[in-house]
């Protein structure tokens, strides 16, 4: 059974055996999150996948070369250099295919990714038959093996994280321009290709450094998932990158800690699952673009519009029924309101219920008729006024035909802010002093039944 103290010790880096691994994956997560943000916005996610798969033959070939040169082949910087070289070669092959044939991006990446990976598996197979090969443990690059991380991994990761951090701080403006509008960047004279190479170089560094921890198959998820999750929370690039780095770091920290308790679970998979969990949560409740927020906003808008339609319908009914002078509040039969628009019974009753809750209506005779309160009448007049101001504006300035102005105004009036209304008023001064607060409708109002 797990002891609470053990969990505590691992999470807060008190446990000597896991401390290094947890710090390493945390650093990697930060670097991945940061670069992943740019990769995602540059629309190069699949390029990252190609890159990581193409590292495998490099690892194998570097090992064979080292053995041929008389070493034991396990020097990590040497292996990672090999990985970086074939990784970049893979990307280059994609660009070559794309630029010189009519094969499209996705097909080019599919081809390169699988061919390089296949070559890597073949090379690894050959290494297995070598006498020195059996103990090489190169397969850990495929799925990752955090437990095998040592102090030299830590230093490599520190170096890579520093590079990525400086790179994205110093070149923030340049990368933003490159990712948003490449051709405009080029027209300003920025060396787009050089920037692209720097970006790719940093992504390569992160990918290669992450091979040990999460493996080449899963590293792409570690790059993209935190960035995609962060996007749900903010509309600003700098905040998104910061958040992405934090989510990446936290996933690395939690994931590595969890897998420390269950040694049979590969750490790479656990880390990616943690990141995916954060993504899922963000997708649901993200404050800017989360599914829930969007749904809430839409529902709110729907009810606001419904309420305004209801109030305006009531106002116009009263307006049509008045003999002269002041508008007086009277009870209006439900079916008459119902006939004003094409709304369903259920939704109209819902709007009425909400307006009643807000003290705008009184309901009489078991909802057979409704009556505005004083507050309700004030708001109804306001709503009707906005609608008519907008209609007049459309007729006057946007050349909208009188016959269809009602529908056009319908769409916009609900989102008019106070400022906008003030501006409309000043532009339509002539209508302002037309006697009443609410200008007359510029089109005949179709009466309800």
């Amino acid at each position, binding site marked *: 059974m797990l002891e609470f103290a053990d969990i505590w010790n691992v999470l807060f880096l008190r446990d000597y055996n896991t401390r290094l691994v947890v710090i390493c994956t945390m650093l990697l997560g930060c670097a991945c999150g940061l670069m992943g943000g740019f990769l995602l916005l540059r629309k190069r996610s699949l390029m990252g996948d190609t890159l990581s798969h193409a590292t495998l033959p490099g690892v194998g070939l570097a090992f064979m070369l080292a053995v041929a040169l008389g070493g034991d082949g396990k020097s990590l910087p040497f292996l990672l250099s090999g990985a970086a070289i074939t990784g970049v070669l893979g990307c280059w092959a994609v660009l070559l295919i794309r630029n010189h044939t*009519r094969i499209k991006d996705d097909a080019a990446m599919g081809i390169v990714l699988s061919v390089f990976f296949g070559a890597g598996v073949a090379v690894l197979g050959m290494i297995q038959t070598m006498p020195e090969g059996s103990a090489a443990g190169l397969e850990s690059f495929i799925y990752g093996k955090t437990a095998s991380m040592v102090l030299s991994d830590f230093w490599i990761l520190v170096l890579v994280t520093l590079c990525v951090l400086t790179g994205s701080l110093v070149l923030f403006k340049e990368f933003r321009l490159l990712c948003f*509008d490449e051709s405009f960047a080029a*027209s300003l004279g920025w060396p787009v290709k050089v920037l692209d190479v720097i970006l790719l170089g940093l992504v390569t560094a992160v990918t290669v450094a992450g091979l040990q921890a999460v493996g080449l198959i899963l590293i792409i998820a570690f790059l993209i998932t935190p960035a995609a999750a962060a996007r749900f929370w903010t509309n600003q690039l700098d905040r998104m990158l910061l958040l992405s780095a934090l989510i990446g770091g936290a996933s690395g920290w939690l994931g590595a800690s969890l897998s420390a308790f269950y040694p049979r679970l590969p750490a790479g998979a656990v880390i990616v699952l943690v990141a995916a969990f954060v993504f899922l949560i963000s997708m649901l409740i993200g404050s800017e673009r989360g599914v829930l927020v969007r749904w809430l906003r839409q529902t709110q808008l729907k009810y606001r519009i419904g309420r305004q339609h209801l109030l305006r319908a009531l106002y116009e009914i009263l307006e049509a029924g008045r003999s002269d002078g002041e508008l007086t509040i009277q009870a209006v039969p439900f079916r008459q309101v119902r006939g004003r628009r094409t709304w369903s019974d259920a939704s109209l009753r819902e709007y009425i219920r909400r307006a009643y809750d807000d003290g705008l209506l009184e309901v009489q005779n078991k909802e057979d008729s409704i009556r505005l309160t004083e507050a309700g009448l004030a708001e109804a007049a306001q709503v009707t006024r906005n609608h008519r101001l907008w209609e007049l504006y459309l007729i006057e300035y946007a050349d909208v035909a009188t016959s269809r102005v009602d529908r056009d105004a319908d769409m916009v009036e609900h989102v008019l802010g106070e400022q906008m209304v003030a501006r409309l008023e000043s532009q339509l001064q002539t209508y302002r002093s037309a006697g009443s607060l609410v200008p007359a409708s510029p089109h005949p109002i179709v009466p309800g039944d």
Partner: protein
Amino acid sequence: MINAVSKQASPGHEALADPKRIPLTIRDLTVAYHRKPVIWDIDLSIPEGKLVSIVGPNGAGKSTLIKACLDLIPRSSGEVIIYGQSYEKERKRVGYVPQRESVDWDFPVSALDVVAMGTYAQLGWFRRVSKRSKALSMQALERVGLADYAHRQISQLSGGQQQRTFLARALVQDADIYFMDEPFAAVDAATERAIVELLKDLQRRGKTVLVVHHDLATVPQYFDWTVLLNMRVVAAGPTESVFTQENLRRTYGGKLTLLTQAANEIVKSR
């Protein structure tokens, strides 16, 4: 003085004018994709201070022409001269408005951020966007009527507002010659009027503006210089002498649609 006189005396003979006063000269320009030429042997000279429409059917190479001028795509042959110099040297005097669809409007930046991109060339490497850049960008947003939307994320802008954001970005470039790729595409009437006002304002300040334009009906109204393009330059010059039914027929050939016929009617009725 002499230049002005010679220009007035013989419009269309810009060769006599000081080459440094000619915003754009194109010689023998050919661009090919996959060995298939898209534009052929373009020879063109645009005088200073003109609003120029580039008109032609789909696939005529209008965007390609602009992109080739800006070194965004490789040229098979020919040269582009900006104010008597190569584009490399006079880059700072050139502004560019790409097609609106060419970027992802879901990108996490605000309208102000996008406009500030127009100042990046002046800022140079590594430097952050300065307060001055932001102030300039804000002014440009005011000029296109979007000051209230400066901090909106760009996906929350309407199509017309997005287009005006792009125009504001070109304004902060403070260039002398502008290349605009379909700024009128799919914008509302209000935006179209705003853009036209902006173009006229640029012209009043002596700028030269080249616009890829689709709506033949508005060409004579908006532009005083016209380039009719269909892989080659069919005709180029003052709109009133170039924008003729005969030239349009030669440009659009068999592709003459109802719309262009309507435009012809307009030309005839003038």
